[in-house]
């Protein structure tokens, strides 16, 4: 009888985790990281081994699972540049060049450890599907596999904090199994409107020994946006939307 009660108790405590499958967990992680339609301000900092820094400030708009545009506000040398992402498609608009050019997710418009896929990251669930989910006392561990070959990283190993349901660490692997970089989500912050999420994303890469890149989120606000904002024709006018 006692054994039966203990078994039932174990099953009952395990139910919340078991009830949430990997896809649902990933969907909740995505929603906790950013609203479906929003504007945000981010600062990117590239830090060299000697401590020298280079900073970029971006104004970003996103809508749905596959649309994002980011405008450089600083430094002056980059001001007015805008990058657009529609699903797997990415473009860069440089005011001097005067037209958008296609870029690829593995390139980097800012140098340093972040590439374009990191800067214009869509929902994880848009690009990846979970293959394995494990559980520890404090975290879920998701193995995510890229849905298509055009995704920057072939596989992700995501550690998700159980309480907040946001990632703490993501290891990014190439198709050959090589670790390309590790992303660390840090410093939980209340962005208002029910948005409690990490405000700092740090990354380091074995390919860039001693270098570090950091992304700081200063403001995330829900905003309704027209689909046409996310087109090549609108790229030169993104700053009018601020």
């Amino acid at each position: 009888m006692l054994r039966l009660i203990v078994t039932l108790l174990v099953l009952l405590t395990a139910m919340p985790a078991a009830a949430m499958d990997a896809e649902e967990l990933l969907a909740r992680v995505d929603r906790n990281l950013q609203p479906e339609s929003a504007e945000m301000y981010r600062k990117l900092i590239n830090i060299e081994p000697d401590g020298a820094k280079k900073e970029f400030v971006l104004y970003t708009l996103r809508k749905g699972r596959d649309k994002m545009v980011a405008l450089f506000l600083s430094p002056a040398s980059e001001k007015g540049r805008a990058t657009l992402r529609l699903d797997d498609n990415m473009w860069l608009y440089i005011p001097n060049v005067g037209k958008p050019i296609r870029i690829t997710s593995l390139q980097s418009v800012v140098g340093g450890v972040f590439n374009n896929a990191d800067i214009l990251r869509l929902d994880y669930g848009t690009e990846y599907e979970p293959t394995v989910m494990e559980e520890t006392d404090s975290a879920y561990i998701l193995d995510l596999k890229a849905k298509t070959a055009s995704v920057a990283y072939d596989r992700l190993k995501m550690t998700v904090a159980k309480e907040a349901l946001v990632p703490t660490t993501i290891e990014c692997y190439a198709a050959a199994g090589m670790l390309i970089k590790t992303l660390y989500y840090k410093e939980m912050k209340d962005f208002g409107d029910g948005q409690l999420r990490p405000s700092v994303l740090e990354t380091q890469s074995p390919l860039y020994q001693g270098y570090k890149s950091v992304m700081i989120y200063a403001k995330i606000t829900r905003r309704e946006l027209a689909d046409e904002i996310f087109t090549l024709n609108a790229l030169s006018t993104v700053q009018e939307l601020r």
Partner: protein
Amino acid sequence: MSRTRLAAFLCLLLCLLAGHGWAEETYSFDLEEFAKKRFTWGGFVEAKGEHFEFNEEGAFALLNQYEDPRSTLNRFTSTLQLDGRFQQSLTTLNWLFRTWAAQDEAAWADDFVVYTGYASIKASPRLTLNLGKKTWKWGKGYAWNPVAFIDRPKNPDDPEEAMEGFIVAEADLVKSMDGPLQTLALTTVALPVWQGVNEDFGAINNVNVAARLYLLYLDTDIDFLYYTGNSRSTRFGLDFSKNLAANVEVHGEVAHIPTQQQKVLTESGSLTTREVSDTSYLAGFRYLSEQDITTIVEYYHNGDGYTEDELTRFYREVTDGYSLFQAGGGETLLQRAANIGQSGYGRPQVGLDYLYARITAKEPWDILYFTPGLTTIVQLDDGSFSLTPELVYTGFTNVELRARFTWLIGGEETEYGEKQNRSRLELRLRYFF
């Protein structure tokens, strides 16, 4: 406090201090600094030093310097570029000015050019109206754009530089959709050519029309382009661009001009006008390797270019004219050759087939913001080419340093073998503000 307690307290304090030092770095981000302003402006100042080694036997050196031949030239150029915008409700005023002054051992030159200056009215997210001087840069090619029907010719040696526009009225309609066709956009442009307005576009007293229909279809950018009017002959174009993988992009352009008049030097030595139907096309790719090396390769067929024989006739016209000039026979033949040069033979990339290749390495040897590169343009008909190694460093905030050296290599009566320069060294510093 006993000594033991004091030691324990100090140990704890040291641990805390050490812990603080070891703890994660904190970052600041003050948004006030980036509050939106109605009026914004920026730009750059540039200082550029150039050293030219002239190809003294080349046709264009003979043509341009027969009165004052020289083997080298040093030039210093300073440039100021200003851009800005003023937004009031749905209307935005945009402008881009450039002014420069150059001093070399032969002359002083300066200029001020309004590259763009136009009013833009965003009537809705789907409709924008523009009025004023504007550039488009139609086409997907990096070095050349045969479909850029209403743009000035791009300089393939510096394709990312700003260009001067034309005065126009433009309407831009765009619609986003779900499904394989994600974006549909129609741009229509009215380009007048009147006295004092766009006179360098073509024949005056005409209003020309150009249009571009853009589709993002199956993750592919596709443009259908059209130009008609009496200032230039009617032309049709198509271009596309697509990412094949996370590190590969392919693109192409085709432009067809059913009827066009072209000046040509005949075998008999006379300059005549012939009517041609020509098709120009370009195919290229961009590839990023695992070592962060970006390669851009483009093949370009210039439909209204000259054959090797036609170019040879022009080069011989110049050398004959120079021989006559040296023999005391006057400069009549050289003047005639200069006029022929202005009729079309003197423009850049005047031949039929070209290959462009550019390789840049991002931050090699762990040097952040350092990008060395190598660019070549090969004239495939005669085998002559240019070769340009360059170094770019952007590690100082808002400063770009660029060093370039260009060799022009080719035999007699080849395109690059007859250019005015044999080599050119350039050191450029830009400060953005």
